[in-house]
């Protein structure tokens, strides 16, 4: 028995650990550090129809236990991702989750349709929650009806399961999640970054040239845990959790909250080996807490173990 094996729509994962979109490029850089085959999956950088340069620099700033980024969806564009990045990744036996972004519905639909044809793309992650672009992005992520409509159309266009990435910058995340589930999403990924700002005391101006940026890292972990806890109880599609994960213990906490797999973002910048380390440590953590299989941990914080004997997601 592989104690870490997890089955999710479209994704047969040898373990539930994957780098989060935007924090791992298209894998090449991290392949210098360890064998990418060890990963459960890879969430690649957001892809748009056209190549994008993104926002002017500075694009990152440090905060207490976190960072702000305003990359602005820089990416080489659909065509280059299809002809260069994905084929390069195909040397690895790792399912790719393609993060899809755009400015208008048609863009999302087009990228989803094309990118889902790539043989190693096993799922789409619909990025309706990027706080760093003027149009599209977060607008789709804050109004349930618009999110649902987009989900439906992308779902029709995609030949692989569609996960929708939720923004934490909303009053009612459960309402968003439910609308997206009803629209046919196969799963949810959450959370994207919270909108934040830092001001340079020397200049008096925001540090980021985009002024605001997305807050990630351990600082946001309690918010992620809370939202996953609420959403995973309200929907019946699986949740891939993320937000501040740094260790195998954090992964356990996300599972307890209700996640069925976990993505690691910012922590890769601090320690390029972090995903590998977490994967290696997970069995020890399962032993320590008396679990045979990682799936037993899923939703433990809200499942009533007295009456149900739940195994696996």
């Amino acid at each position, binding site marked *: 028995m592989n104690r870490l094996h997890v089955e999710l729509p479209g994704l047969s994962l040898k373990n539930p650990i994957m780098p989060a979109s*935007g*924090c*791992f*490029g298209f894998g*090449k*850089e*991290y392949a*210098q*550090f360890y064998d990418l085959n060890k990963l459960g999956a890879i969430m690649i*950088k957001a892809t748009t129809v*056209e*190549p*994008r*340069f*993104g926002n002017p*620099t*500075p*694009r*990152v*700033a*440090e*905060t*207490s*236990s*976190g*960072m702000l*980024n305003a*990359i602005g969806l*820089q990416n080489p*564009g659909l065509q280059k991702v299809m002809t260069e990045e994905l084929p390069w990744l195909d040397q690895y036996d790792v399912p790719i989750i393609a993060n899809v972004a755009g400015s208008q519905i048609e863009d999302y639909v087009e990228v989803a349709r094309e990118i889902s044809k790539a043989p190693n793309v096993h799922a789409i992650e619909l990025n309706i929650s990027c706080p760093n672009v003027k149009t599209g992005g977060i607008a789709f992520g804050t109004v349930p009806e618009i999110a649902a409509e987009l989900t439906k159309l992308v779902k029709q266009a995609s030949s692989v399961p569609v996960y929708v990435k939720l923004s934490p910058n909303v009053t009612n995340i459960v309402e968003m999640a439910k609308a997206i589930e009803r629209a046919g999403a196969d799963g949810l990924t959450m959370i994207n970054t919270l909108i934040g700002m830092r001001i340079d005391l020397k200049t008096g101006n925001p*540090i980021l040239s985009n002024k605001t940026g997305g807050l990630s*890292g*351990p600082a946001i972990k309690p918010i992620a845990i809370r939202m996953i806890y609420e959403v995973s109880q309200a929907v019946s599609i699986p949740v891939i959790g993320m937000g501040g994960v740094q260790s195998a213990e954090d992964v356990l906490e996300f599972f307890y909250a209700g996640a069925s797999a976990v993505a690691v973002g910012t922590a*890769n*910048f*601090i*320690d*390029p*080996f972090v995903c590998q380390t977490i994967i290696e440590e997970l069995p020890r953590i399962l032993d320590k807490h008396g679990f045979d299989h990682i799936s037993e941990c899923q939703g433990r914080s809200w499942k009533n173990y007295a009456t149900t004997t739940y195994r696996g997601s």
Partner: protein
Amino acid sequence: MIKKEMMRIVSQEGIADDIFEITLEGSLVKEMHQPGQFVHLKITEGPEAFLRRPISIAKINKEMNQFTMIYRKDGLGTRLLSEKIVDQKVDVLGPLGNGFPVEEAQSGETALLVGGGIGVPPLYELSKRLVKKGVHVIHVLGFQTNSAVFYEEKFRELGSTYVATVDGSRGSKGFVTDVIKTEGLVFDTLYACGPTPMLKALEENYRGYNAYLSLEERMGCGIGACFACVCHVQNDSLGHAYKKVCSDGPVFKVGEVVL
């Protein structure tokens, strides 16, 4: 190859106002080949000074497995670094990036090395390599003020060295570009590292030359994965071509990227 290692502090010393020289020891030094490369430091183990800090390699001592950095105590991370003591460890990721091309200067030729402030340190290892190769080196080093000057003597041992300070309290008053002009310095190859305005002035003056500039940018990953540190490419009609300072740079040929 890029490695990550907990390296031991061999020495740490204040060498000018808020300027520290720190030497670390470990097998990662074996990987250091090019002057102008940098390392990315995680200064505390915990969340404090959360991100890594990019600092240039100033001196490499392969025999001892040691390398030296010179940094300015400025914000949180460099303050914490300055409080570390001998035998404590620092988490080093490196070496990173593409440094100065030593091969661009030939024996017998003249290389002009121009540094501003905390852009000076990487020029030291570069200068040593050039001298070893038989290149004639001239250094022009700019600082804010007398108390900020460091390594003047060390550079002087390698070649003629001009110092300029903004307030004129040491060397000539003004900027490095003024020195080059007034002293009528000529060269075959130019290497420079320093604040962007300095690099822009050099680009202006020496666009057609065999010149190499080392850039600075705020970084996330330091290895090319996060797109934090990109810059535009010059003469790019579509506007979405880019170079990453961390992995394509930090050293670029003059005219290659938009400063």
